């Protein structure tokens, strides 16, 4: 696994596959997942390729499978996911599969059609039943009203009796309509018939099932009374327009009762038939559900194979397919084996041939990762994929990422919680993986479980160093500050709120530092923040400059690997000198200040920032304690300054100049070679060799666009020089976020939980009980989730910009092998 440092060596290969063995070979390669095929017919349309018919057949099969799946889902039958991974079936099996699917689909369709017809029948009958029942009440009411109407007729007088005296034959239609259509229906009836109809409607309380969609719909029964045939046809037309279903309804009560009985028995009959069809359907689907996942995988594999075959070239004789592909050199053996297996399986006599070939194209970047390193590699890749064989920052990121994170997230309590959560995810990894959650946010956390694990562990350590546990300190080794034994008596301590401890005084301060991390006494001191700020700022600078320096060193590794000696001398060297002279020197000053200056001469401690600025201004003011300044400092600083200033033109000018000279030299060489006939055979050969080498080295670069190189170098120089300064400042975010985190957690403790601790007695118990929950929730939501996210993002930035900009080009492209696993996985996501 040393390969994580640089990407795998890749070879561009040519594959000659016998036409009959091609399918088997490609499917073997798909199982292996180590070969990236190049599309050799990019200009050919999708539907003009060779195996388009097979692809289409696969699509047809997929469609049938989707149909089956939908039906299975509808019946809520569990689909068995056995995790089986069948091989891609041979082409001849495709016909069997097609036949099976065809049969299943037809059967399903037939069953569905039958069920639909039956359901429709059932619906009709139930509607009729409702109509008979509801209209009965209408008629009953009408009967009971009879007496009333007669009375009113009498009241109206003789004429009214006369007109109504003739037998008034009212016709009626009864039917069922969707409930929401009632109001417009009623309005339309009124308008179209000019109010000459009488509509009664009542709701059917139980929702009915729509036979086509299977939805539950609410309907209403209506009955319309009218007079005359013209109105009848009109009413019927309106009913049709509103999709109301009309049912014949007998006029006399006896007939209605008889019909109602008939309907009930028919409904019962239908129910048994329906349940039988349902059973049949269920049986068919259960049988299909067992295999459907495997079928899906098979069909997808076939389709993937044909897609790949479509990318291959047919040779002139039509007997073999030619493909070009990338594959890792390490795995050539495996690929050969797979090809042999494929040829054997297809029974071909001529072996498939794998040929390595030379190419000028940049190979893809393939970093072999495992589940632990993958997340770190992903972090790097999301910024930019490393160029081929470029130094890969991922292995360093594994350590530096959680470390920088922990500097900002330094709290042992929060770190422990994070660590525990990550450990839980790692321990139950397999079980969680099996569940396949769809929750994107959860999956994001789960995918990052190893990075969370490391971040938790590092934060725990950093928290112990900061001596910060939920914003409290613990006193393990005994604080080295002890005011009681000194000049302050117990009485004074009790009466005074603030007391000053003198570090120069032996009784106040033991004289040796606290053995591990921060002294707990600082937690109580008034100048805690001042002291921590100064400390954390310096620490940030030291680690930051360290990381940047490391990045510059990695660029040396790149230059050496690519045999780019110009860059070593014209880029790496000035860069190192520049960085060391400014910030290396600053670190020396910091360390000097820490070591050489103690409490006795604290007043003379030099200011680092002012000192650095003065170094650039060549300004050395008389200081009160100038005796403390080391004697050679002025000379040293001037020397460093000259070096720094020299570095800039060095970085800016030298490389373009040398490139130009080289170019001119080769030009001259080739022109002289052309001009004079070669006298000395040997030297001419050398010249040719040299020319060829130059050509292979960088013919394209040497088609020298001087302007471009100069501009590029200019940008590079400015970026580096300004970058060093701004990036160093940028590393101060380590301090800033750490401060913010500590303060926030302290505020949360003081404002929420401490309130409970202040209360005495039983009430205190209750208040602790009540206030613990908000404190814990806020701790998790704000300090653990939000703060961690912000610290994570800042760390990401520090890596992507401050660290990687020193050496990482990231201009490669990912190796994207043809692999069944990947295809099936991505499809599973889509579904």
């Amino acid at each position: 696994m040393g390969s994580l440092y640089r990407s795998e060596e890749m070879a561009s290969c040519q594959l000659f596959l016998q036409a009959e063995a091609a399918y088997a070979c490609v499917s073997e390669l798909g199982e292996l997942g180590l070969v990236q095929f190049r599309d050799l017919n990019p200009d050919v349309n999708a539907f003009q390729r060779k195996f388009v018919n097979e692809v289409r057949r696969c699509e047809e099969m997929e469609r049938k499978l989707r149909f089956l799946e939908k039906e299975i889902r509808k019946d809520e039958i569990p689909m068995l996911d056995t995790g089986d991974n069948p091989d891609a079936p041979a082409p001849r099996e495709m016909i069997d599969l097609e036949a099976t699917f065809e049969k299943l689909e037809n059967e399903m369709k037939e069953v569905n059609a039958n069920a639909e017809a039956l359901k429709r029948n059932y619906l009709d009958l139930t509607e009729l039943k409702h109509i008979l029942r509801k209209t009965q009440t209408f008629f009953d009411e009408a009967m009971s009203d009879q007496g009333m109407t007669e009375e009113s007729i009498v009241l109206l007088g003789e004429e009214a009796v006369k007109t109504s005296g003739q037998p008034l034959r009212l016709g009626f239609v009864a039917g069922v309509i969707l409930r929401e259509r009632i109001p417009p229906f009623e309005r339309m009836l009124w308008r179209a018939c000019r109010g000459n109809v009488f509509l009664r409607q009542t709701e059917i309380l139980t929702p009915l099932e729509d036979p086509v969609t299977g939805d539950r719909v609410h309907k209403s029964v209506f009955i319309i009374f009218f007079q005359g045939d013209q109105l009848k046809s009109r009413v019927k037309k309106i009913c049709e327009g509103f999709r109301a279903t009309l049912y014949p309804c007998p006029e006399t009560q006896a007939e209605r009762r008889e019909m109602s009985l008939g309907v009930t028995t028919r409904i019962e009959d239908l129910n048994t038939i329906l349940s039988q069809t349902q059973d049949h359907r269920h049986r068919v689907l259960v049988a299909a559900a067992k295999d459907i996942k495997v079928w899906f995988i098979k069909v997808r594999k076939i389709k993937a194979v044909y897609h790949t075959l479509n990318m291959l070239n047919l040779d002139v004789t039509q007997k073999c397919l030619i493909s070009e592909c990338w594959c890792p050199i390490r795995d050539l053996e495996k690929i050969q084996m797979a090809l042999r297996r494929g040829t054997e399986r297809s029974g071909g006599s001529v072996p498939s041939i794998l040929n390595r070939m030379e190419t000028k194209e940049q190979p893809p970047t393939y970093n072999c990762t495992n589940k632990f390193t993958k997340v770190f590699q992903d972090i790097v890749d999301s910024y930019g994929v490393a160029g081929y064989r470029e130094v890969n920052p991922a292995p360093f990121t594994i350590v530096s990422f959680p470390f920088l994170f922990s500097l900002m997230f330094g709290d042992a309590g929060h770190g422990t919680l994070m660590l525990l959560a990550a450990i839980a995810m790692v321990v139950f990894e397999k079980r969680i993986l099996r569940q396949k959650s769809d929750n994107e946010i959860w999956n994001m956390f789960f995918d990052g479980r190893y990075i969370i694990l490391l971040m938790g562990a590092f934060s725990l350590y950093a928290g112990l160093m900061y001596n910060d546990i939920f914003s409290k300190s613990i006193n393990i080794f005994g604080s080295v500050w002890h005011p009681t034994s000194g000049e302050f008596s117990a009485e004074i301590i009790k009466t005074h709120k603030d007391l000053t401890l003198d570090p120069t005084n032996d009784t106040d301060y033991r004289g040796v530092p606290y053995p591990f991390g921060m002294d707990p006494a600082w937690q109580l001191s008034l100048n805690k923040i001042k002291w921590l700020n100064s400390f954390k700022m310096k620490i940030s600078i030291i680690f930051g400059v360290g990381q940047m320096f490391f990045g510059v060193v990695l660029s040396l590794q790149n230059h050496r690997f690519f045999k780019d000696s110009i860059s070593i001398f014209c880029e790496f060297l000035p860069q190192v000198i520049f960085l060391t002279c400014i910030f290396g020197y600053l670190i020396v000053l910091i360390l000097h200040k820490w070591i050489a200056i103690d409490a006795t001469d604290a007043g003379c401690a030099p200011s680092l920032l002012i000192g650095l600025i003065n170094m650039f201004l060549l300004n050395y003011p008389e200081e009160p304690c100038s005796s403390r300044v080391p004697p050679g400092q002025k000379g040293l600083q001037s020397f460093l300054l000259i070096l720094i200033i020299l570095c800039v033109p060095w970085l800016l000018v030298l490389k373009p100049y040398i490139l130009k000279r080289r170019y001119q030299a080769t030009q001259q060489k080739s022109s002289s070679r052309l001009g004079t006939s070669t006298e000395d055979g040997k030297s001419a050969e050398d010249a040719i060799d040299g020319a060829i080498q130059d050509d292979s080295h960088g013919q394209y670069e040497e088609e020298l666009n001087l302007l471009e190189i100069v501009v590029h170098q200019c940008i590079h120089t400015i970026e580096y020089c300004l970058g060093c300064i701004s990036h160093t400042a940028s590393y101060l975010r380590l301090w800033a976020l750490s401060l913010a985190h500590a303060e926030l957690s302290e505020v949360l403790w003081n404002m929420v939980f401490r309130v409970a601790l202040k209360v005495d007695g039983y009430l205190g118990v209750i208040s602790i009980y009540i206030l613990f929950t908000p404190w814990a929730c806020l701790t998790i939501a704000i300090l653990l989730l939000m703060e961690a996210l912000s610290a994570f993002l800042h760390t990401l930035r520090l890596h992507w910009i401050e660290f990687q900009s020193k050496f990482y080009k990231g201009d490669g492209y990912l190796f994207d092998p043809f692999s069944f696993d990947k295809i099936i996985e991505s499809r599973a996501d889509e579904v």
Partner: protein
Amino acid sequence: MNSLNFNIDNGYLEGLVRGFKGGILKQTDYLNLIQCETLEDLKLHLQSTDYGNFLANEASPLQVSVIDDKLKEKLVIEFQHMRNQSVTPLATFLDYITYSYMIDNIVLLITGTLHQRAISELIPKCHPLGSFEQMEALHIASTPAELYNAVLVDTPLASYFIDCISEQDLDELNIEIIRNALYKAYLEDFYKFCQTLGDSTGAYMSDALAFEADRRAFIITINSFGTELPKDDRAKLYPRCGKLFPDGLAALARADDYEQVRAVAEYYSEYRVLFEESSNNPGEKTLEDKFFEYEVMLMKKAFLDQFHFGIFYAYVKLKEQESRNIIWIAECVAQRHRAKIDSYIPIF
């Protein structure tokens, strides 16, 4: 409405419609489509465009009508989504767009019933954007007055219909007159509505609607030659919100043959070009196609500006044109009649 507040209510939808617009087929897509040998090829290629798998669940063999239905369905889903998300001025605007489809549906249904077709046979042919509740009961009416009183009075088209009530009965000619009268009233009303919205909406929509009105005026005139439609009746059908109003319309009302129509168009630079370049010879674009091309050009222009409703109208129109193109190509492919397969109208 000013652009400052536009995004509060309509920003999401404008973004959405611009995204949809990105899915409109490009010239290269068309070049690929016309190379198709069968409808299956067409389906395969459409899969690689924004249409994605919209035909994936259709059993082969594929019918052109299925493609047509699916195209419509896709547009309707997108449109309904926008309509459901929109608030008043935009919601009304989108409703206005659907009215033209309603008019077409009404006319289709009346013509159908006139020819004794069953209503259930006609309904699937209606454009789903223009369907309304009372639509299926249209066939109870036998006179325009009845049509108005019983059916249309509840629909938003009621106010447009008032002018047509006087027609005596529903025959072929009258239906055409009703259609055009409705359209005229609709266009004028829509025009007025867009003017009240003002700003760039007003500007872009007045361009679009003016063109629509003028196109109708030209087409009505040309189609009326050889029918018994009297000239003054014809003049009543011209929508009066176009650039032709009032002089051009007056001249059109007097026109007796195609040459005279052409002479009218001479006075308007944008229409003159269309008439000049069109001809009925095979291999050249017809006047209708030229009008479509001009419309596409107008609609594309609407996307150049921000903060106005014109793009919603433009999107629907462009999508409609795209459907026409795809159907044209599909028909050519299906009927193996490749000679005229290029006469689609490219959009981007």
